[in-house]
């Protein structure tokens, strides 16, 4: 652990300082949105296999591809007959991956399962999703607090698995699989990642302020599963209220269970929320390229995921709603909204009073790594941490990019020590397949720092993506 007085831990390599613009939403309490008339739940919300629709909902069990390719839904839509339509209540299981890697899916609203439709997906373009439409009177299911301390490790994992929790930091790796270590793997530290380094986003921030106690409890649950006692909660120093709330919650915890949980403020620098960077800045350990973080004895979990783990274990509440930051100056009212997963953006926009005329871009996720969408039919997924309605003023003009002037700003910005400039020039020259020498395949996590810093406004993240495709194509060719 670093113990330099008054010096906040930092990652030494790369990083940028975009303007944070968190003031739009950081003081707004979490607000629960009314249930939308319809939710669209993608079968694949996470890393791993897509969820399969539950046997009792549809007469036969099929893989998601079946609904797209087979006769049943030629147009990518599969509506159910009236007899097949099944009533579900809030929190009811409607999809599961059984014993494969993946996460269960629950309906967020009380209503009827309409079928499986091709729905606009922020990343994949279109993907099959279960549509549930609201009907009947929605009664909030009563969640009562259980004493989780008596559960065994297996019981805890089973509860987390049943709740369908995925990592909420971005990638969406199923939480129970991440903390269920293989025999022979030993870790000594749990890092809760509360740095939330993306500009605009404040959902983790608000969760930390309002549910500090739940996060500390969730940390203890994970520590119990891992069989260790040390937990560091890393929070960027621009969230003093969150740091204070968690510090108090950790200090005043009546039943510490021998756990050593403490809060570590971090320097404000993008991308501090990346697992590699937060591990290095808190523990000085560096993950070898291509290995898991558990290989250096650390498990990193998002703070919000930790809170949902607590909900799953102590309340038996499945993960079917989440806090999403709705921000940017292109929407009438900004908010930290608790929404049902699958809520289409259109309902959120309607709830918040519509968009402004100078709206120029809708981004799902943060401004650095998020995806721009053009349709309000896009639903919220489990990993959507924010929806930004950005005006022209905020994003600047979309301009044509210039040639690389070799200024080297991207080398200084890259947290992984890569050479985005060289990769981009190679790709432009049609030599993308030769880019393997730059070793970006394992290391680049598309944080966008290079493209942010580039004065020629070159789309470096996309050049690197193209290089990846070319390298993989070349490898395949070699194998054949």
């Amino acid at each position, binding site marked *: 652990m670093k113990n330099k007085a008054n010096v906040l831990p930092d990652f*030494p*390599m790369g990083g940028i300082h*975009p303007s944070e613009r968190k003031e739009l939403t950081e003081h707004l309490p979490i607000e629960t949105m009314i249930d939308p008339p*319809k939710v669209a739940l993608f079968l694949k919300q996470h890393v791993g296999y897509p969820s399969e629709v539950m046997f009792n909902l549809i007469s036969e069990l099929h893989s998601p591809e079946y609904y797209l390719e087979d006769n049943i*839904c*030629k*147009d990518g*839509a*599969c*509506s159910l007959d009236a007899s097949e339509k099944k009533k579900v209540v809030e929190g009811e299981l409607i999809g599961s991956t059984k014993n494969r890697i993946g996460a269960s899916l629950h309906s967020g609203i009380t209503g009827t399962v309409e079928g499986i*439709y091709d729905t606009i997906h922020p990343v994949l373009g279109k993907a099959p999703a279960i*549509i549930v439409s609201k009907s009947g009177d929605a009664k909030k299911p009563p969640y009562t607090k259980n004493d989780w301390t008596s559960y065994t490790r297996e019981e805890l994992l089973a509860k987390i698995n049943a709740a369908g929790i995925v990592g909420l930091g971005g990638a969406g790796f199923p939480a129970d699989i991440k903390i269920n270590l293989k025999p022979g793997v030993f870790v000594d530290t749990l890092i809760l990642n509360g740095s939330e380094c993306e500009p605009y986003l404040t959902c983790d921030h608000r969760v930390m302020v309002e549910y500090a106690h739940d996060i500390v409890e969730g940390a203890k649950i994970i520590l119990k599963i891992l069989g260790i006692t040390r937990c560091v909660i890393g929070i960027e120093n621009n969230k003093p209220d969150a740091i204070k709330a968690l510090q108090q919650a950790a200090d005043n915890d009546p039943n510490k269970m021998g756990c050593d949980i403490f809060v570590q403020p971090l320097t404000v620098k993008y991308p501090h929320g990346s697992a*590699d960077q937060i591990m290095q800045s808190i523990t*000085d350990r*560096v*993950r*070898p390229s291509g290995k898991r973080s558990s290989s250096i004895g650390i498990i990193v979990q998002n703070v919000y995921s930790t809170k949902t783990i607590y909900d799953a274990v102590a309340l038996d509440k499945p993960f079917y709603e989440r806090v999403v930051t709705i921000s940017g100056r292109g929407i009438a009212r900004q908010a930290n909204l608790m929404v049902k997963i699958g809520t*289409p*953006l*259109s309902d959120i*926009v309607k709830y918040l009073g519509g968009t402004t005329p100078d*709206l*120029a*871009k*809708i*981004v799902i996720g943060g*401004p650095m*790594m*998020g995806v*721009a969408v*053009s*349709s*309000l*039919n896009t639903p919220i997924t489990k990993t959507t941490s924010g929806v*930004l309605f950005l005006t022209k003023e905020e*994003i600047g003009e*979309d301009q044509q990019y*210039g*040639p690389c*002037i*070799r*200024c*080297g*700003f991207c*080398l200084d910005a890259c947290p*992984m*020590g*890569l*050479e985005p*400039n060289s990769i981009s020039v190679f790709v432009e020259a049609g030599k993308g397949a030769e880019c393997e020498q730059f*070793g970006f395949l394992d*290391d680049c996590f*598309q944080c966008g720092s290079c493209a*942010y*810093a*580039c*004065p020629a406004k070159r*789309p470096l*993240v*996309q050049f690197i993506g193209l290089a990846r495709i070319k390298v993989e194509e070349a490898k395949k060719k070699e194998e054949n």
Partner: protein
Amino acid sequence: MNSSAKETIQIAEKPYFDNLSVSFSPHIRSQVSTERIMWTVVACLMPSLIVSMFVFGFQTLMITAVSVISCVMTEAICQKMFKRPVTISDGSAVITGVLLAYVIPPGVPIWMPIPGAIMAIFVTKIIMGGLGFNIFNPALMGRALLMASYPVAMTAGWLTPIRDLSLDKYLNSGVDAISTATPLYVLKHYGLSGLIDKFGSLSTMYFDFFFGFRPGCIGETSACVLLVGGLVLLYKRYITWHTPVSMMVSTAFLTWVFGGETYFSGDPILAVLSGGIILGAFFMATDYVTSPNEKRGQLVFGAGIGALTVLIRLKGGYPEGVCYAILLMNPLVPALDQWFRPKRFSEGAS
């Protein structure tokens, strides 16, 4: 399957926006652009021109203007000719024009920069592939051509600094001005005693050279304002300290060791203040395109320029060597980039 089923998923009344941008991430960019960097460099160079007008007369302004206009015109014409987008507004041709004027003597005929501009922009930059692809520093290639083609004008066009503020001398500079010799020429041929005879005591020389009252090229004489410009670029983080500092330190050190009558008796301060060291260190060796990307590479690059400069000054045929030193180091940049790759994250275990 039927159309009504499809319509049920049209959740919003107006699901699509017609005019939304869906460009790639990241969706926010830093304010720094190529244009902004280039024009900042131009602005940082301007004080030197003002001092130069004050010291050598209005002739310098004319030469600089001719140089800038011919560089910009060459770029525009070439890009039109090759059917490439015309990019004169990005300021890079203006920088080349200013720098080209800064490295030629003030007493040359005012058409002199034109062939240099064609060499700099057309041969060195456009033919190589345009901005970002040139191997050599364009302005210095322009100067190298002028040195080869007009050696007399380029080595005799030195003017004595004007100290009495007479308007007559300002207006007629270059026409009937008294030709003189640069400090480095005097030092090379008459030694330190000759230099002191001509330019006064060492302390007077430090003072005069620092503020720009010495014969020399148009933009290289005033160390003071060039340093201010360089510090602005450093403060803005457009350049890093590595190249300029290693170039100045290596020049000073090697001059101290080898530059005197005996070893370790050279004058390092004079070495840095005379000739084009400051201009070269902050504005030419740091040219992004023709310098290494990596910091360690930049240190080697700067040190190499310093060493070659001293070698040319002491042993070569010319009194001044910054121009050729930079041009000789330029082609080594790809090799330096290969040798000094950035340290990867996974190697950074500390």
